[in-house]
């Protein structure tokens, strides 16, 4: 249609690129599928393919109170960290989003820096500060540490949503006599809400999955799920972990599907 000649040269290019792309996509999804299949094994090992199928490891998971306890802790910390990230992050995003000043750009870099700096170094640093000021590690220190590493996602997604906001809408609202707070509640917030939700979702997932910060900032009584799983895996290869992993994979797939509906997550992350 475009008059482009389909020479062997063009075909070889498209063939190579398509084949690599498909291999890459398979490499991306295969591990999750493997875990899902192995979790239904009737045997005691992680042999693939499984010798037979059963739900025994899910029954085992049902009774694994240590994992339940750790999951509950992780969930509570993630919810608090996400809530705090939304409050602090959205306010900060409102301040820095339309400002071109040097201080706004510096603050933006500061708020984004936990994304590139090694989280383990930050975890150690935070532990040293807390022990210096005499604040013992507790769920509180965990929430603080998690908020530092999770708030960048809320800031970034909220700033992106604000950047797409039509300034004339706000001007019209002001011209029609609406107060700033009223304009924020009735115009700004509804329009940027999907952006905030997308950011909060990623913040929640990364808090729930965080190991480097939790490793230093938790107390002995606060077992966190990813650390529990990691330590279980270091010790022995337990098939219960496969069942738990499958539950987490399914939960993630469901949440991502919901988020795609609510916020258009895929467009948001590639724009």
């Amino acid at each position: 249609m475009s008059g482009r000649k389909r020479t062997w040269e063009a075909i070889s290019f498209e063939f190579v690129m398509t084949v690599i792309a498909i291999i890459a996509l398979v490499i991306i999804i295969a591990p999750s599928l493997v875990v899902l299949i192995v979790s239904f094994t009737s045997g005691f090992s992680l042999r693939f393919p499984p010798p037979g199928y059963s739900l025994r490891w899910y029954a085992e998971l049902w009774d694994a109170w240590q994992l339940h306890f750790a999951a509950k802790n992780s969930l509570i910390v993630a919810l608090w960290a996400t809530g705090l990230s939304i409050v602090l992050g959205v306010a900060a995003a409102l301040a820095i989003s339309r400002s071109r000043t040097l201080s706004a750009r510096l603050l933006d870099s500061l708020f984004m820096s936990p994304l590139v700096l090694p989280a383990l170094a930050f975890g150690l640093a935070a532990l040293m500060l807390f022990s210096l000021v005499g604040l013992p590690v507790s769920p509180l220190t965990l929430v603080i540490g998690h908020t530092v590493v999770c708030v960048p996602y809320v800031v970034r997604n909220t700033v992106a949503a604000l950047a797409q906001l039509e300034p004339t809408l706000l001007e019209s609202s002001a011209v029609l006599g609406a107060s700033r707070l009223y304009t924020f509640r009735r115009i700004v917030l509804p329009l940027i809400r999907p952006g905030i939700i997308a950011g909060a979702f990623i913040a929640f997932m990364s808090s729930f999955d965080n190991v480097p910060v939790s490793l230093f900032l938790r107390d002995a009584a606060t077992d966190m799920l990813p650390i529990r799983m990691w330590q279980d895996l270091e010790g022995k290869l337990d098939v219960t972990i496969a069942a738990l992993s499958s539950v987490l994979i399914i939960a993630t797939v469901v949440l991502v599907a919901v988020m795609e509906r609510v916020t258009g997550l895929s467009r948001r992350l590639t724009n």
Partner: protein
Amino acid sequence: MGAAPASRDVTSHGMGLAAPLALFFLVFFVAPLLQLLWLSLHNDTAALHWGLGQYLHFLTDPFSLSVLGSTLLLGAEVTAVCLLLGFPIAWLHQRVGPRLQTIIILIVLLPLLTSVVVRTFAWIVILGRQGIINATLQSLGIIDTPLKLLYTQFGVVIALAQVQMPLMTLPLITALGRIDPNLDDASCSLGAGSWRTFFRIVLPLSLPGVIAGCTLTYAAAITAFITQSLIGGGQMLFMPMYLYQQASTLQNWPFASAISIIFLLAVLAVVSVFTTLGRMSRGYGGA
């Protein structure tokens, strides 16, 4: 005359709204890092004697230097694999319909949001002695005894590449989406073949995305503590685990601080090299 300041007033909010987060970061992010720096400049664990002893120890110790070297090398290998595999995904994404586009993005996105421990665990199942690769090769009669794949550099690179792939692919998809498709057609109708068009037009124009992807992938790969330790096993030591051992097991906080600072500086150096390249490539793309 009053219109401009008034409109600025309603569309932007005061910097005061950033104060709570700025304060929070000052106390819980900047202060800890400064304290880390302060402690690293002491020669003893009680932090009584100032000095560069910790850094001298690291920089003159062949073992420490080899840990740093292998960590930086690991990052480069993972980034290269991600780029090689991620670029074709972004390319394919450009050529398919909107429905397939969403599916490709969701496939890429999913591992990013799945627990790192879960993703790493999956690679243990695949690479293990009884894992898929060994089972397949054995049943095909290609090998007699299982290959050692777990606890090798190869295993760590492949697992990390899969874990970090979204960080490379998403910026590439964004970058390729911004290239005018007419350029591709123009190049081809002027007689350049597909390969040449790709290397001379598409690749250079997507450099900002390539650099953004490389920065994120590299930084994530060298700090990916869980995957490194589970797939690498006890014999392979990288900077994050080295830091953790010194801080937690040996309680040598000044040395652990120095390791952290050296590691931080290494990451910052890499990021700023990439950022500089990115600025140069934007000039190139615009020309």
